[in-house]
C-alpha cells in the first residue's frame, strides 16, 4: 500500500484531504480496548475503567502527510453475550484492532479466534492489527512477544505491544493502520466486493468524498 504516495497518480481533491475510516476494536472482555481508545482519543487513562455496555462510538482525527484521517471507532463490549452482535460492527469496517492482554494467555487464544472470524466474514481488504496490551506489566506476561509476532506475520497483521496506561505504542498502532489504509483511488471506482447487506456503508477502499 505504499503506492499511495507514488508519484504520478493523480489524486482527487488535492492536498489536505479528509478521509474517514471505520475502525473496530475486538477482543475479550477486560483486555483494555476501551482504555486504548480513551488514550488515543482523549489522552486519558482510568485505572478502574468499567466494562463497556453495548458499544461505544468515538471519532478521532489524525494527520498523516498531507491527509487528514478521521477514524470512526467502534469500541465493542467483549462479553460473551455480545458476540453475536459483532458482525454488525466489523462489517463495513476498513480497519480492525484485535486486542489481547499479554498477561492472559486465554485472551490471546480468543484474539486468534477473532482474527479467524474477521478473515472469514469481514471485508478481504480490511486492515488488521493485533495489539498486545498491558505491556506495562510485562513482568506478569504469559504471552511472549515472539509468539504473537510470529502469528501476526503468518496472518499479515500489524502487531505491536501496547500500554494504554503508559501510552506506549497507542498512537503508533493507529498511525500504522492509517498508513496502511488506502487513501487514493477516485470515487466511483469499483472495488472488490460490495456487501449488499450494508447499503449505507461507504464504498470499500475509497475514503474521500
Amino acid at each position, binding site marked *: 500500500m505504499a503506492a499511495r504516495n507514488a508519484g504520478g497518480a493523480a489524486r482527487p481533491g488535492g492536498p489536505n484531504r479528509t478521509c474517514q475510516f471505520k475502525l473496530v476494536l475486538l477482543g475479550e472482555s477486560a483486555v483494555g480496548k476501551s482504555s486504548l481508545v480513551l488514550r488515543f482519543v482523549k489522552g486519558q487513562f482510568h485505572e478502574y475503567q*468499567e*466494562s463497556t*455496555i453495548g*458499544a461505544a462510538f468515538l471519532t478521532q482525527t489524525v494527520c498523516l502527510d498531507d491527509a487528514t484521517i478521521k477514524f470512526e471507532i467502534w469500541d465493542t463490549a467483549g462479553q460473551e453475550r455480545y458476540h453475536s452482535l459483532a458482525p*454488525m460492527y466489523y462489517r463495513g469496517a476498513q480497519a480492525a484492532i484485535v486486542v489481547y492482554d499479554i498477561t492472559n494467555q486465554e485472551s490471546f487464544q480468543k484474539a486468534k479466534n477473532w482474527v479467524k472470524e474477521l478473515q472469514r466474514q469481514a471485508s478481504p481488504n480490511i486492515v488488521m492489527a493485533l495489539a498486545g496490551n498491558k505491556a506495562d506489566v510485562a513482568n506478569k506476561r504469559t504471552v511472549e512477544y515472539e509468539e504473537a509476532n510470529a502469528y501476526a506475520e503468518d496472518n499479515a497483521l500489524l502487531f505491536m505491544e501496547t500500554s494504554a496506561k503508559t501510552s506506549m505504542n497507542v498512537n503508533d498502532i493507529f498511525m500504522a493502520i492509517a498508513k496502511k489504509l488506502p487513501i487514493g483511488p477516485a470515487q466511483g471506482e469499483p472495488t472488490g466486493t460490495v456487501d449488499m447487506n450494508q447499503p449505507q456503508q461507504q464504498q470499500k477502499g475509497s475514503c474521500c468524498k
Partner: protein
Amino acid sequence: MEVEVPGGSEAVGGTDTGSESSFKVSQVEIEDVEENLKNAEAIFEHLEQLPFQVFILSEFGKPIFVNNDRNEGEVVSLAALICAFVSRCQSWGDSLMTMTSQDNHIQFLHKSPLIFCVVSKYPEQLDQQLEVLFEQICSILSKSQLENVYKKKGDNYDLRKLLRGTDRLIDSSISSWRASPINLVDSSISAIPMNPSDREFLSTTMASSLGAAKLDGALFGIMIARRQIAAIVRFKKYVIHPRDLNILINLVSDTTLQTDSQNWVPICLPRFNDTGFFYAYISYPWCKTDQEDIPACLVLLSVKRDHFDGLKEVRQQIVTKLEGNAKFFTNFSQAVKTPNLYQISQIGSNSESLWSFLYLNHSSKQVCMSSSKIPLITRAERWIARCEMRRSSSLSTRHPHLRTLFVRGTRHCLFVWVTDLFSLYCIFGPFVTATIAFQVVEKLLKSLKSHEQRYFIINTTSF
C-alpha cells in the same frame, strides 16, 4: 372537595421519581451541627450500613449476584440455603414470600430460572423491588434467552458469564431504591420542571427530526437528565412502560458510561417485549465538553440494529436545532443543571406549615415532589420524610380502600389523601390542624394544576 386533577390524564410511561441528585442541587446542605432529631443519628448510621442486601441465584442454588461483602464461601452457602427454603415451600405446593425477625425483613422472589432475595430493615415494597431486579436482568439478556440458557447449558451453568460487566447496573438499581421516596413500584415518571414552551420546542424538535429520518423501526426518543424526563416522543401510538423507562434511566444514569462517546446498546425492555431487543442510541451531547457540562442524555430507541448511522444523523439534527435556539438552550441548560423543583412557598400564605409533599397522578403516572425546605434539609431529615411517605404508600398499597390518613406525631404530621385519580403525601409541622392542612392542600392542588405544564408532561408528541 372538588378538585381539578393536575398532571394529565393519559399515561405517558415514566421513570422513577426524582432521586437524591436532584435534591443535592436545589438546596443548601446545612450541617447538622447540634442535636437535631435523636433518631436522625441512628437513621444516618443505618444509611451508612447496607440498607438492602441482595442475593440473586439460580433456582439450582448457584450464586449469581450479591451486593454485600461476604466471602465466597459464605455466599455459596447462603445461596444454597435460600434455594433450599424456596424448594421446600415449593414441595409443599406453596411459595415462599417473606421471613421476618425482630427488625429484619427478608423477601424472596422465585422467577424461574432465578431466585431473588433481599434482606433489609425496611420492609416496604421489597417484593416489587425484586421484580424490578428481575426485569433489570431481563433487560440485559431478554427473558427468553434467560429461560433457555439453563435448558441448553445445564443446571450448573454460571450465569455470571452472560452477565459480565453488569453488576453496576444492578447496584445502581438497588441504590435508587433508597433515594426514591415512593419506589419504582408505582411506576411513575418524574418530569424535569421546564417552561411549557421550552418543553414543547424540545418535543417537536425531537419528533420532527425522528419523523423526517423515516427510520422504520425507530420508536422512541427520550431526553433524560438527573433520572427525570425532559421530553419523550413516540412513534404513533406506541407506549413505553414506566418500568422500562426506569431501566433505561438506570442505564444512562450510570455515570461511568462513556459520556464522550455515542453508545449503541442492545437492551430488552421487558414490559414492551420480553423476547427481543431494542437498540438504544445513547449520547450526551453537552456533557463535559469544552463549552458546557449539561448532564442531559438523548436516547433514541429502535428495533433495528443497523439504525445507528441514521440515528446519529437524527441526533445531529436535534442538537443543531436546539443549539440554534439560544433562548431555549439557555433555559434548558439551566433547567437541567439546577432543577427548579416545586417550591412550597409558591402555594402562598399559610403554606409554612407544609414541609414536604409528593403528588402522584394515577392516570398519567407522573410524580411531582417538592423541593427541600427547612426544616427538612439534611440527609437524615429528608430520609425520615421519605420513610414516612414510603410507609404510607405501602399502607395504601396493602389497603386500596384507604382514602385519608392523618397522623399527628411529636415531630411532624403526616397527611395522606388518596383518590382514584391521585395520591398526595404531605409532611406538615406538628402543630397543624386538620382545617389548615386541608386548606393548604386545596391551594396546592390548584397551584399544581395551573402550573401543570411546567411540572408534568401533559402531551407526548408523536411522529
